[in-house]
């Protein structure tokens, strides 16, 4: 029987979906060890506490909330010091974080601060005797490794969206604590956070991604891709490296070997031929649709469903069809 730890990522005072996934993983390992408690830690500006009740739904037994006016934005040093202190005090078997932008920054510091091993960007978690067995994509998604992580606490960051959060309701106790380091004493300071207007839904979290390539011919034609994404209602917009290199879309939208690695339920590739570098970023999607005028394009070999033809005719028709389905509910 062992307790586990989950880090609750929040942005703008709201809990992010990846936090529920971390709690789900922590719940699973606590249960597999014979039924320990799941303790969560949330850090942010005052007001965060009000959000914490919902963590019980996914199996958290206790949440420690650290609120401070100086923590409206992420502070690497304060977050790391506070998480290290909480994990040390708890004597946990394992600690789960999200492999989000924040988590990829925070988690390695926490593991190094604790002097323990860490596995990152994990897609499946199992407890086996004295080790955690963890699936992790390697070689830019071209192979899947099963990793063996020994020692306690085992620190793990989870690929967003890879393991769905599942409900396992508990009565959650909410406690408060102070940061382990005064935010005013931090050396590294996040001075601004600009929300980019283009990215309404994040590529890592969206169940549907509509992605565009050079076949769109010009930046303004991305409107077609955006309209289709809007029609789905739960879609994010991605792009190939050729497109972001040309400045048609911000580099943060790039899906591929050197950009984001995504695995949505549905991936719609519009005017994308399917360069190896792009395929590496999306090949683990559940269902892939390709629309391209070249019937020999490599994307069609990977796609579950392809339509050959002029995207400028096909995409608007698809957008209308999806709108109609959603209107019908």
């Amino acid at each position: 029987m062992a307790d586990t730890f989950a880090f609750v990522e929040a942005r703008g005072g709201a809990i992010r979906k990846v936090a529920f996934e971390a709690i789900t993983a922590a719940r699973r390992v606590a249960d597999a060890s014979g039924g320990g408690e799941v303790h969560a830690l949330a850090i942010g500006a005052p007001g965060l506490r009000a959000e914490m009740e919902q963590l019980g739904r996914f199996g958290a037994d206790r949440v420690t909330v650290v609120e401070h006016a100086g923590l409206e934005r992420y502070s690497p040093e304060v977050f790391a010091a506070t998480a290290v202190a909480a994990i040390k005090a708890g004597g946990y078997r394992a600690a789960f974080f999200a492999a989000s932008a924040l988590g990829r920054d925070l988690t390695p510091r926490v593991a190094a601060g604790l002097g323990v091993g860490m596995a990152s960007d994990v897609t499946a978690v199992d407890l086996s005797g004295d080790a955690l067995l963890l699936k992790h994509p390697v070689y830019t998604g071209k192979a899947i490794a099963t990793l063996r992580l020994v020692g306690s606490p085992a620190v793990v960051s989870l690929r967003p969206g890879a393991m769905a959060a599942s409900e396992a309701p508990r009565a959650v106790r909410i406690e408060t604590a102070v940061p382990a380091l005064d935010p005013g004493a931090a050396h590294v300071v996040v001075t601004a956070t600009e929300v980019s207007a283009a990215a309404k839904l994040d590529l890592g979290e969206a169940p549907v991604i509509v992605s565009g390539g050079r076949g769109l011919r010009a930046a303004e034609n991305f409107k077609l891709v955006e309209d289709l994404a809007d029609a789905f209602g739960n879609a994010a917009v991605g792009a190939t490296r050729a497109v972001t290199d040309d400045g048609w879309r911000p580099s943060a939208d790039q899906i591929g070997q050197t950009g984001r690695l995504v695995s949505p339920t549905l991936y719609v590739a519009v005017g994308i031929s399917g360069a190896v570098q792009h395929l590496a970023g999306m090949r683990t999607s559940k269902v892939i649709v390709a629309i391209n005028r070249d019937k020999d394009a490599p994307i069609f070999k990977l796609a579950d469903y392809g339509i050959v033809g002029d995207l400028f005719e096909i995409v608007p028709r698809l957008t209308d069809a999806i709108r109609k389905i959603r209107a019908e509910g």
Partner: protein
Amino acid sequence: MKIAVCLKRVPDTDMRFAVAADGKSLDLSGLKFDMSDFDGYAVEVALRLNEQQGPGEVTVVGLGPDAVQETLRKALSMGADRGVHLAAAEVPFDGLAIAQALAAELAGQGYDLILFGRVATDTGNGMVGPMTAELLQLPCVTAISHLDIKDGRGTAHRELEGARETVSFPLPAVLTIDEGIARPRLPSLKGIMAAKKKPVESRPAALGPIRLTVDKLELPPERAGGRIVGEGPDAVPELVRLLREEAKVI
């Protein structure tokens, strides 16, 4: 500025992969190796900083078998000044073990900046940079897409999901570099000739204990793709039907 860049030699991921007979490592036959993509950007950032801000020294550090010296030479041919090879029979998967060896090498050497690529394209771990920073007790900013250094302080941008952070930090610091910040230059013939005369020291890597290992390596299941629903906009109703009734994703 005195800048260190930590490099990794990785298999070229454009190649076709096969799993070796042991079921847990890569079949190395026919693979080409090169500097990990993001490490190239880190070298370029270091070179540009010193070109713009006056003289300095760029040291490239690589850990692994002797072949790592080829990767260090490539960075020297781009313009780095000297190489340090931390010799180890193989590069462990465990990021903290590597970070401990790097921290032992880099501590107390007076580096103003220590740069890493944001993630290695083989392990996909992305942890050695921030772990090294933590062990050295240095400020650290990860996955930066923009960098300004002025009067002993730096300003960097990092991309979040749907947002961008601006981060201010004092030097010395550890930074991990995302692509897009500075496209790596190709070594010139002159650079390649000059690199042959630049010093590369080799000493054993002081790796930490290993807690993370690979149990099994598998190739992802082949996709049963390749189905063409039809041609032109008239194929859209059939596509939508398949997505609803067969794939059940809408």
